[in-house]
């Protein structure tokens, strides 16, 4: 009973699951979404379609095959939107469920493009597990920003989802290896790796660096095949045993990188499985690492965010920055707190400070407005994906204009419609 409790019911931080949600969304998007740019070719009536009778019942396939074209178009739009919402963690559970329903719908409609493969089927199972609870939206998500909980990164949840994902990948490795030798596999009796190296240009094997070398050394190929099979057998045990866990994660990830570089197989293996291996890292260790970093940053000189504490919009923005500030790199300072602004930076006056958000770096550099966020995208993990946008050519012209527009019209984004020209006051 205690073992069961420790395995599935114990509450542990869900930050690992939140990160994995992003990986799963990226894997699904990279695999499925390109096909929606050409709906006519793949999904509308007149497209060449094949049907997966192994995965779906005949009745389901017949029902979906009757879909009119307008429904397919609507479903594609809904899928795109739900996929994006799941990726950014906006109403995570609902958007993930809608996305999963859409992926299954299009899989039933035509499996020719997506193709019946273990990788795709397992991706659907993985997303199913992620949608069962709202836990994957606890952090690295818009949901976390909406809740404005600065401690969202240490939210504790029952561990069963993460554990089932661990079991899933471990059994995938195990049965993949098992099937290579029994009942129909020929990895002991034949030399599959060598044959793969001999495939012509039209085959699954890419023209990677060592291909011709391996094609000339069949004995080496056989030994490599045995090594790969042994590794797949051992990996589940190495992953679950703490002393070998990190090595197993590195080894498994390396295996999937090699798979992507050498064979034309669905890239789901590369985008999903290494992050899924990271789920074996104990989430309490991740939280302890973050706490240590926060303590170190708190003890040292931090960047200062200077904001107008009497502006509700500004206060809400700063609360959300606090949520995103995973490693505690920022000190939020209300300019009305009485601290001497000139002592902070000679260029700071109350008039200047109240005009826009400011960031004062420990080495003395002062940033304002748009350029504050341009600096923050390097400090706040949740903003890392936006680096390219903030440094896109022309952003230094468009960005400040956009910031000034938002600052001027911030009452439009806020429930307090009286807020204009920095005149938002909190009702007492």
């Amino acid at each position, binding site marked *: 009973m205690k073992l069961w409790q420790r395995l*599935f*019911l114990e509450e542990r931080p869900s930050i690992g699951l939140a990160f994995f949600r992003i990986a799963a969304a990226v894997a699904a998007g*990279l*695999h499925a979404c*390109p096909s929606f*740019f*050409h709906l006519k*070719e793949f999904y509308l009536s*007149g497209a*060449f*379609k*094949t049907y997966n009778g*192994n*995965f779906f*019942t005949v*009745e389901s396939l017949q029902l979906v095959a009757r879909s009119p074209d307008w429904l397919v178009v609507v479903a594609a739009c809904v899928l795109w939107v739900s996929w994006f919402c799941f990726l950014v963690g906006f109403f995570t*559970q609902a958007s993930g469920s809608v996305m999963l329903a859409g992926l299954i719908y299009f899989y039933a409609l035509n499996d*020719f*493009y997506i*193709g019946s*493969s*273990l990788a795709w*089927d*397992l991706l*659907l*199972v993985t997303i199913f597990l992620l949608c*069962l*609870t*709202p836990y994957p939206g606890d952090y690295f998500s818009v949901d976390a920003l909406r809740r404005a909980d600065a401690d969202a990164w240490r939210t504790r949840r*029952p561990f*069963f989802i993460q554990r*089932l994902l661990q*079991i*899933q990948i471990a059994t995938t490795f195990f*049965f*993949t290896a098992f*099937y*290579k030798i*029994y*009942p*129909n*596999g*020929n*990895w002991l009796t*034949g030399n*599959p790796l*060598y*044959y*793969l190296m*001999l*495939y*012509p240009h039209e*085959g*699954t094997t890419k023209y990677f660096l060592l291909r011709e070398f391996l094609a000339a050394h069949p004995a080496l190929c056989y030994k490599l095949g045995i090594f790969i099979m042994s590794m797949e057998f051992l990996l589940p045990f190495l992953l679950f045993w703490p002393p070998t866990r990190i090595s197993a994660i590195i080894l498994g990830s390396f295996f999937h990188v090699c798979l*992507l570089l050498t064979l*034309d*197989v*669905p*890239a789901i293996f*590369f985008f999903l499985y290494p992050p899924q291996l990271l789920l074996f890292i104990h989430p309490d260790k991740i939280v302890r690492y973050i706490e240590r970093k926060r303590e170190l940053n708190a003890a040292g000189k931090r960047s200062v965010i200077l904001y107008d504490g009497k502006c509700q919009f500004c206060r809400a923005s700063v609360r959300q920055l606090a949520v995103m500030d995973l490693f505690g790199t920022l000190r939020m300072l209300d300019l009305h707190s009485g601290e001497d602004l000139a002592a902070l930076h000679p260029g700071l006056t109350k008039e200047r400070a109240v005009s826009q958000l400011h960031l004062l770096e420990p080495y003395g550099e002062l940033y304002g407005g748009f350029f504050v966020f341009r600096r923050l995208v390097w400090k706040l993990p949740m903003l890392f994906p936006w680096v390219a946008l903030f440094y896109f050519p022309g952003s230094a012209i468009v960005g400040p204009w956009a910031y000034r527009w938002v600052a001027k019209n911030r009452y439009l984004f806020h429930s307090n419609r009286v807020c204009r020209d920095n005149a938002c006051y909190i009702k007492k």
Partner: protein
Amino acid sequence: MQTNLGRSLGLSAFLILWGALVYKFPVWWVYTLTVPPILVVNLAKDKRLRDHFISLFVVIWLMVFMLNTTRHLLLEPFLKRSFPGFSLALAVNKFLFPPAGPIMFFNVDDSFGFYRVSGIKNGKLFDLNPHEVILNRTLFYDNIHRGVLGAIGDPGSVVSFCRWMHGRFPEFDDFAVGVRQYPALKKSRYVYQEGWLYRCRDVLPPQGGRP
């Protein structure tokens, strides 16, 4: 009090609906067994109740997820018998639970074959680039090299494929699907055999077959 009553009523209504659904479509019953426990896990305020239903969900999930794989890979080959009674009236590998079958590269021999598509115009044959037959929109891997064109050799797909090709390449009068087979790569990587599998004009119905 009202919230608890509303939640309980909603949950009960959903369970009745679920019961009606699996009564109408029996094949769905195993695959939706996880729905009631996960609903309780999401909605329950009481931690003990939540934990009980988490345990129930985990047991159901592991059993159904592992059932087909274990039966197909371990029990049936070892014991050399099938287990219809054990299958819980499951159709083989439906919906969420991945087939034990399509594990890649479990048996690779030294032969290789692939399908080729040619367009026919004024009696002349034109080889078509497979990447233009199925515009390859996969990222980080090549779907053609992965063997996606294998579907065009399926007898159940030839008519729809031919119809689609006429729409895709209207400039051609006809199409032919051939197969190239490398019978023994160990002996030679370059020796192959070729033949034609079918010609579209032979498989399409005489009238209305072409758009």
